[in-house]
């Protein structure tokens, strides 16, 4: 009888070999990518970066506190862009999600179309939508609202149609058995089941959109981004720090607010 080896190993030898190969490939890829980036970088600027950065921070002080008053309107616009953009996205995504969910979609072809809309909306970021819309609609808050809603439709629809696909069929059948029409069956059996997750998604997206709407102004689509662009291009750093502080407090506020809403509604 051969002596048995009772040493316990977390992983088999083959698995360890495979992992070493995987890590080697990952590290090789990293070095390869790093070389490409390094070749396109002006290194003296980077070495100088820390000094430039600290000089820049020093130039921000003392902050131009009174600039705060000029920012109230842009902040209001930013919140408007996020809120109305999210609302528009919610309304649109009700249709898109209904078409995209396998169990409610009226036709497989419509379902594919809805899925295509979701993919396109999710892949193109709101800043790019904003660039296109500013060319078409002209600069202003409206372009920002539409850009935010076009970006959000995919996100909200995707989560909504996934939760529609997971509903409990029995409840739908129970409502249908009372003689309810297709539409009332939808309202009384599907909607109550998906409502909590839908509200959660919508509020979460609003929270993300507050962040996104701070930048659409950079390309002219309204909100505080416009002021940020002005301050940086004009090298008005005492103004820029006020803008950064406003963005930070706006985002923190929206995070607290959305956490509270979610607690109340779900």
């Amino acid at each position, binding site marked *: 009888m051969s002596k048995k080896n009772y040493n316990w190993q*977390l992983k088999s030898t083959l698995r360890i070999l495979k992992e070493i190969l995987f890590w080697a490939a990952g590290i090789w*890829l*990293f070095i*390869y*990518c*790093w070389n*490409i*980036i390094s070749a*396109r*970088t*002006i290194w003296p*600027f*980077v070495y*100088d*970066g820390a000094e*430039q*950065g600290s000089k*820049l921070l020093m130039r921000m002080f003392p902050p131009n506190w009174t600039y705060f008053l000029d920012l109230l309107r842009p902040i209001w616009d930013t919140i*408007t862009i996020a*809120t*109305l953009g999210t*609302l528009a996205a919610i309304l649109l995504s009700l249709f898109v999600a209904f078409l995209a969910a396998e169990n409610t979609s009226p036709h497989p072809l419509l379902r594919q179309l809805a899925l295509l809309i979701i*993919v*396109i909306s*999710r*892949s*193109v*970021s709101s*800043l*790019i939508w904003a*660039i*296109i819309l500013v*060319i*078409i*609609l*002209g600069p*202003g*808050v*409206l372009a920002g609202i539409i850009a935010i809603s076009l970006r959000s439709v995919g996100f909200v629809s995707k989560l909504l149609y996934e939760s529609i696909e997971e509903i409990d069929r029995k409840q739908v059948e129970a409502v249908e058995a009372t003689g309810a029409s297709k539409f009332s069956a939808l309202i*009384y059996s599907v909607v109550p089941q998906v409502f909590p997750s839908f509200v959660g998604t919508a509020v979460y997206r609003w929270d993300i959109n507050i*962040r*996104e709407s*701070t*930048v659409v102004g*950079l*390309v002219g689509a309204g909100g505080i981004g416009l002021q*940020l662009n002005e301050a*940086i291009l004009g090298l008005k750093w005492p103004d820029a720090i006020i803008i*950064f502080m406003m*963005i*930070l407090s706006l*985002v*923190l506020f929206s995070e607290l607010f959305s956490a509270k809403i979610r607690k109340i*509604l779900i």
Partner: protein
Amino acid sequence: MLTESSGNYSWQRPHLIKNKNKRAIIYLLAVAYIIFTFISLKIDSQRIILGLSRSQKYFADFLRPDFISRWNSIVDGILESLTMTYVATVFGIIISIPFAFGAAENISPKPIYYLSRAVIVISRSFQEVVIAIFFVVVIGFGPMAGVLTLTFSSIGFLSKLLAEEIEDIDWTQVEAVKATGASWPQLMTYAILPQILPRFIGLSVYRLDINFRASAVIGVVGAGGIGTTLNAAFDRYEFDSASAILIVMIAIVLLGELFSSFIRKKIK
């Protein structure tokens, strides 16, 4: 809600907000807010009509994507975006690990906890483009500014979610391994890492996906990648090239999504 009215039982759907007055006030405020903001929009209808008539040409261009005339710069931009994404995600992962341990309430001392949380809040609050502007000003145009931007915003995301995972680990497993007389490195590899590793890999792959999407926009402010190419196409009103770039981007995002769902399934 069953209400008895003149002997008939009629059923009504329960309302979202139980209190009748509260409900009225909240709905009223919401409607008032929407009406007020609509009035404050200042829509310039003439500009829109002008833009819409002009945009017919743009739409026509959008429908005939032109891959050929700018093919080289598209390939170059995509390559730059992908390299930026990969390098930044690797840096982000490496840096986020200590911050994640620092931000986990159950294992970190209070001062370090608050410091890590502050870093996470700052990193998460600013949109990538805002951070990119800062880095472009500090170290100049090019992909390095993009790498730093994506790294910085990855730190907040990864540390926050990983810290939550560490806070949720099962301490009985840690104690069990401790009871065998394991040293600290052994404790890490056999008790803590196996509990957080699957989620960490999932998050990293997810972040890779997000970073690629973000790499397409930070180019607009000069931080390298396909965004630079895209912005140039928009500036020259070459909507056919822009459309081609967007299609390539969407295709890569889709591939990335397939890849990340494959990885997440595998580690589950």
